[in-house]
């Protein structure tokens, strides 16, 4: 392994980690308000499609990203209404979103582009180097010559950590996930916060999906999310429901993905599928080592009924 191989792996790690990180942050905001949303895979799928279509028609990746966010929010509002207002089971409803959103995405794609033998492609978002920092030898091009989405995502991690630990609004927000009744007696709008969490979750998961079609792959294919929504769920657990922890977990999964691709190229006569398994097997192994379901918001996944004692 020489220096260029290592640097290309680091570069790929950062690139691979961003979509998972965005989706994991979506789940973090959701679960901090007590909303377990396993529909991330579906939200990311619809976000990926919206991002692709709008980038294709307008030519602007930023419009694509915003469209992804909007699509994610729209779909997640179904989840929000059913789980917050109707007190439906979070897991079951997340599953329903996982069925609805990809079906919707593939339907819209067929209607818009036909059964397409021709390959639809978009131009990816360009990287912007940060002047000064990108000239640092070795590390500069790796960390400071990325697309703006990468910078924004990492900035969001910092914001999230500060928000949940250092701000009154963040503590209030967390209290909804820990003990909604107590939060309500302090005058916090529990239902409103839960809805807000679903808006944030939908937006971030949608952006995570849109990232795939605006910064990562030039085409939209069915199953482009390929389990990232579920890996993000694992990342939140592994990251112990904190911004920094989630970042580390996602970097780890990004590294697995990067290594996997690297190993596939230098295939040693081993069927390539074994390398493709690495991120999924790593998720299982890492969770098995980290263990414990006891951490995390106390009222996670529980319905909130105002009048109930």
């Amino acid at each position, binding site marked *: 392994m020489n220096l260029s191989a290592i640097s290309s792996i680091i570069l790929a790690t950062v690139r691979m980690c961003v979509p998972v990180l965005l989706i994991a942050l979506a789940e973090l905001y959701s679960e901090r308000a007590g909303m377990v949303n396993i529909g991330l895979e579906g939200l990311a799928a619809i976000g990926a499609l919206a991002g692709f279509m709008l980038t294709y028609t307008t030519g602007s990746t930023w419009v694509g990203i915003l469209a992804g966010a909007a699509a994610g929010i729209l779909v997640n509002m179904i989840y929000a209404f*059913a789980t917050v207002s109707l007190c439906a089971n979070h897991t079951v409803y997340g599953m*329903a979103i996982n069925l609805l959103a990809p*079906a919707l995405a593939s339907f819209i794609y067929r209607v818009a582009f036909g059964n397409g033998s021709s390959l639809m492609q978009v131009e990816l978002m360009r990287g912007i180097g940060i002047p000064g920092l990108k000239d640092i030898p070795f590390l500069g091009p790796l960390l400071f010559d990325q697309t703006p989405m990468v910078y924004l995502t990492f900035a969001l991690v910092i914001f999230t950590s500060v928000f949940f630990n250092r701000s009154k609004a963040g503590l209030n927000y967390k209290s909804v996930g820990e003990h909604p009744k107590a939060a309500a007696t302090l005058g916090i709008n529990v239902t409103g916060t839960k809805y807000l969490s679903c808006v944030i979750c939908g937006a971030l998961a949608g952006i995570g999906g849109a990232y795939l079609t605006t910064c990562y792959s030039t085409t939209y294919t069915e199953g482009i999310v*390929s389990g990232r929504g579920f890996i993000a769920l694992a990342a939140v657990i592994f990251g112990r429901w904190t911004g920094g922890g989630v970042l580390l977990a996602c970097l780890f999964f990004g590294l697995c993905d990067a290594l996997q691709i690297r190993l596939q190229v230098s295939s040693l006569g081993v069927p390539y*599928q074994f390398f493709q398994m690495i991120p*999924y097997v790593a*998720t299982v192994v890492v*969770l098995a080592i980290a263990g414990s*379901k006891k951490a995390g918001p106390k009222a996670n996944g529980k319905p909130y009924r105002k009048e109930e004692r």
Partner: protein
Amino acid sequence: MEKLKRSLTGFLVPVLSILLAFVIGAIIMACLGANPFAAMAALFQGAFGTVASVGTTLNRASPLIFTALCACFAYKCGVFNLGGEGQFLIGATAAFCAVHLSGAKGIGGILLALLVGIAAGGLWGMIPGILKITRGLNEMIISIMLNYVATLFMGVIYTSWIRDANTPQTPSVDDTLKLSRVIPGMRFTWALIIALGVGLLLYYFLYWTSPGFKLRAVGLNMTASRFNGFPVNRYILMSFLISGAIAGLGGASDLLGTQFRLINGYGSGYGFDGVAMALIGQLHPIATIIVAIFFAALRVGATSMQVATGVPTSVSDIIQALVIVFSVAGMALTKLPEFEAFRLRVSGKKEKEGK
């Protein structure tokens, strides 16, 4: 009386959800410029129009019944097994390897394939179960991760290890191993009979035996069951083992009945579809089977609908997803205290009018 009312809502909610989903499906069709009535007619004609198409529908339903029962059984014990697809594929893959490597033929080969499928699916299903009871892990994430691993492992078999010359697929299973059709002229095979048999067995086990009762008790309230001295962990593990075995049997029988070879994309979506069907069927094995047949009909019909009216087949996926979106929300709605109050007011009024 109260029980009757509850089972009535349990029946009405899915039926209303299906109707509502079809109405929205019709609106989508109309938006695409197709005549929704013609499209719906083509859909039902394609699924049930002739004896042969009924056979095709039932054949399409067979694997779905297995994955739906797999999901249903695990949920009855309160664990979310989302790994039906992986267990199905591991069952099919193991069954294929067993008959391919041993060269077994005839009825003995069929039995070998089915048994290996059951064992492989069951063991694969045990992994999330073991990790749940020993490490307290979320069984949903683990079982989904194992789906991807199983799909990739099947890929190893058909692209590298047992490859049919130049195409990335395995050779077909021996002709003597293929399950025969039950009724000539209808495409469904003995796989369907096995599926129905498993469904009846599950129904008997869950509702008429003592372990079945305890298993449901664990599913309804794990803490209470633990205080009652039920071996909760053993029931959880058992539910994973059996639900995985059902999916594995499904994979093996579908391989011998319809698929014959391992190929790219095989089984894709079966697991989540099974989850949807089990939920719409209110986790009742018999209702789940009916729902599975219904959705198989929707898919078979969608193809003829596409030919007749140009509406893409994927509209049937949307209708299916909408049914679950509506039915789960509907069931939640009927459990809300506000709804109960509303129902009492309405029925109270009726009683007054009766007087």
